[in-house]
C-alpha cells in the first residue's frame, strides 16, 4: 500500500509540473506585451518596458516560467493587474466561499445519487430504471445555467422562497438559503454520474456469486440487500464520488457566475474579463492543483478499498 501511495504521489507531482507548464504557456501566448496592454497605445516604449520589468514580464519564456513557478511554490502568484494587490489576498476568501458551496452540494447529491442508483439497479430494465438513467444522463449534460435558470424562475421569481443569488453572508440560515439554489444546480449535473456508478456497483453485487449464495441459503431479501449487496457496492461508489470533485470545481465557474456568488469561479470569470493574467493563472492553477489532489485522494481510497487495484497496477 505504501508503495502504491508513493508511486501515485510521484505521478501527481509530475502531473502538477505539467499543469504549471500548461497554465503558464497558455497564458503566455498573449499577443503583444502585457505592459502595452495596460498602458494603452499612446504610452512611450520606455515606460512600457519599465512596467513589463516591474511585472516580471521581461526575459525569455523559460526564465519567466522559472520565476513564476518559483514564486508559486512559495505561495506567491504575483500582483493582480487590476487591483495592484497580491493575488493571494483574494484567492483564500474566494476559495472558502467555493468550498462552502461544494460541501453543500456534496451533502445533497451523495445520498440522492446513491439512492437513485440503488433504486434503478433494483428495478433494472423497468420503467423506473429507464427514467432515472435517461433523466440522470440528460441532467448531467444540460449546461449548469439552463438548470439554474429554471430553478431561479421557479423558486426565486415565482414562489419567492429563495434569493436568486448573492453571497453567503450572515447567519447560518441566511447562508443556507443563498447556497441552496446554486448547490441544487450543481446537484443536477452530478446526480447522473453518481447514480450511474451506484447503479453499476449494485448490479455487479446483485449478480455476484456471494449474493446468490446468500439468497439460496434462505436469507430474507432485505438482509441480503443490506449485508451482501449494498455493503459491497457502496464503498467503491463513494470513492468514485471523490473523483468527480474535479468536475465540481469546473462547474463552479458557470454556476457562481449565474448566481453572482463570490467564489473562485466568479473570481476567475472576472479575471478573464479584465485580462488580469496573474490572477487568472494563480486561480486556475490552484483549482487545477486542488482537482488533482482530489483525484489523488480518490485513487488512494479506491486502492485501499480494493486490493486488486493496488496489486494489479504494477504492470
Amino acid at each position, binding site marked *: 500500500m505504501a508503495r502504491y501511495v508513493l508511486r501515485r504521489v510521484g505521478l501527481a507531482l509530475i*502531473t502538477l509540473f505539467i499543469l504549471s507548464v500548461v497554465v503558464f504557456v*497558455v497564458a503566455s501566448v498573449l499577443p503583444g506585451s502585457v505592459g502595452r496592454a495596460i498602458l494603452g497605445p499612446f504610452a512611450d516604449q520606455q515606460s512600457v518596458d519599465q512596467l513589463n520589468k516591474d511585472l516580471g514580464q521581461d526575459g525569455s519564456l523559460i526564465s519567466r516560467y522559472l520565476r513564476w513557478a518559483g514564486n508559486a511554490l512559495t505561495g506567491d502568484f504575483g500582483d493582480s493587474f487590476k487591483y495592484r494587490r497580491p493575488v493571494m489576498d483574494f484567492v483564500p476568501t474566494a476559495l472558502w466561499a467555493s468550498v462552502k458551496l461544494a460541501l453543500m452540494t456534496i451533502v445533497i447529491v451523495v445520498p440522492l445519487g446513491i439512492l437513485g442508483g440503488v433504486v434503478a439497479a433494483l428495478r433494472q430494465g423497468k420503467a423506473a430504471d429507464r427514467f432515472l438513467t435517461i433523466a440522470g*444522463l440528460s441532467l448531467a*449534460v*444540460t449546461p449548469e445555467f439552463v438548470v439554474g435558470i429554471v430553478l431561479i424562475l421557479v423558486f426565486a421569481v415565482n414562489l419567492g422562497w429563495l434569493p436568486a443569488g448573492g453571497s453567503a453572508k450572515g447567519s447560518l440560515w441566511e447562508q443556507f438559503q443563498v447556497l441552496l439554489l446554486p448547490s441544487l444546480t450543481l446537484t443536477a449535473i452530478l446526480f447522473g454520474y453518481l447514480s450511474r456508478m451506484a447503479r453499476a456497483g449494485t448490479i455487479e453485487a446483485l449478480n455476484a456469486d456471494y449474493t446468490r449464495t446468500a439468497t439460496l441459503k434462505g436469507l430474507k431479501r432485505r438482509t441480503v440487500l443490506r449485508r451482501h449487496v449494498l455493503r459491497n457496492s457502496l464503498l467503491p461508489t463513494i470513492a468514485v464520488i471523490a473523483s468527480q470533485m474535479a468536475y465540481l470545481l469546473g462547474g463552479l465557474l458557470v454556476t457562481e457566475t449565474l448566481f453572482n456568488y463570490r467564489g473562485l469561479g466568479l473570481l476567475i470569470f472576472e479575471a478573464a474579463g479584465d485580462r488580469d*493574467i496573474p490572477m487568472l493563472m494563480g486561480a486556475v492553477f490552484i483549482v487545477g492543483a486542488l482537482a488533482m489532489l482530489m483525484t489523488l485522494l480518490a485513487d488512494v481510497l479506491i486502492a485501499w478499498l480494493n486490493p486488486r487495484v493496488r496489486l494489479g497496477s504494477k504492470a
Partner: protein
Amino acid sequence: MTAVAVPGAGGAPDPAADAAAESRAPAVTAKDVRRELRRQLFRSKTFLGGMIIILFWAFCAAFPAVIATDDPSRQDPASKWVRPFTDGFLFGADRSGRDVFSRMVYGAREIMIIAPAAVVLGTLIGITLGLLMGYFGGPLDDVISRIIEALMSLPVILVALLALSALDASRLTIILLIGFLFGPIIGRTVRAAVLTERNLDYVRAAELRGERSTYIMFVEILPNVVGPIIVEFTVRLGYAVFTMAGLAFIGFGTQPGSPDWGRTIFEERSSLLSDVWWPSLVPALALASLVVAINMVADAIQGLVDR
C-alpha cells in the same frame, strides 16, 4: 447477432453439417453486420426521437430563414417584452423587441457548426493518439498518458477560458481549442479499445507478414475499434455542446447581440427577475433539447455496441 439460415437436413442440427454448410453458404460479411446494426438502431425509439430533434436543429442551422418568422436582429422598442403568443410573436419579444422565436432558430447555427467540427477534430486527434499509445505502448504511452492526466485533472472549461482570454476568441479558435482538449480524452478511450485488439491473432499475422505499423494501426486495428469510437464521438458531441454553451454564457466565442443560445441566456438573464422568462428560458430549453437528444442517440448506439 445476424442469423444466417442454414438449410438443415432434418430436425436436430448436426454440428458437422452446419460447419460444412457454413463454408458453402455465403459467409456473414461486415456489410451484413452493419446493415443489421443499422436496422436495429432505426427500430429504437430513443434513437429515432433523438435523431429527429437533432435534425430539426440542424435544419434550423442550415436554413434558418425558412422557419424563422422575422429578422433575428431587427429591434423595435415598441414591442419590448411582448408576452408569448401575442402580437404575432410566437415566443414573445426580448428587451429590444426582437422576436424570441426567430432568435432561437438562428441561434442554432453557431453551436451546430462549432460542436460537430470540434468533435470531428478531437476524434481525429484521439484516433491517432489512441492507436499510437495502444499499439506501441512503452515510454511513448507513459509520457502521453501523464500529459493526458494533467489535462484531464483540469476542468475543460477552465483551460478553455484561460486560452481564450489570451487568444482572440473566434469561431475557429474555439473549434481548435475544444478539438485539442477533447482529443486526448477520446484518445484514452481509443487506447483502451486498441489494447484489447493489440494481441489478437490477426494483428500478429499482419506483423508476421511484415506490414508497416501504420498499415497495421489504420487498416487492421482501426476498423475493429470503430464501435467504441462512434460511442465516444456521440458522447463527446454532447459535452462539446455543453462546453461551447458554457463558454458562450461566460462571454466567449460569440459577438454581443448574437442570437447564439448561451450568449442570449447570459444577456437576457437579468430580466428573469422582472418575471420576464421567455427571452432566456426559450433558448435554455432549446439547448436542453439538443443535449438531451444527442444523449438519447449516444445511449441507443452504446446499447448496441456494448452487446
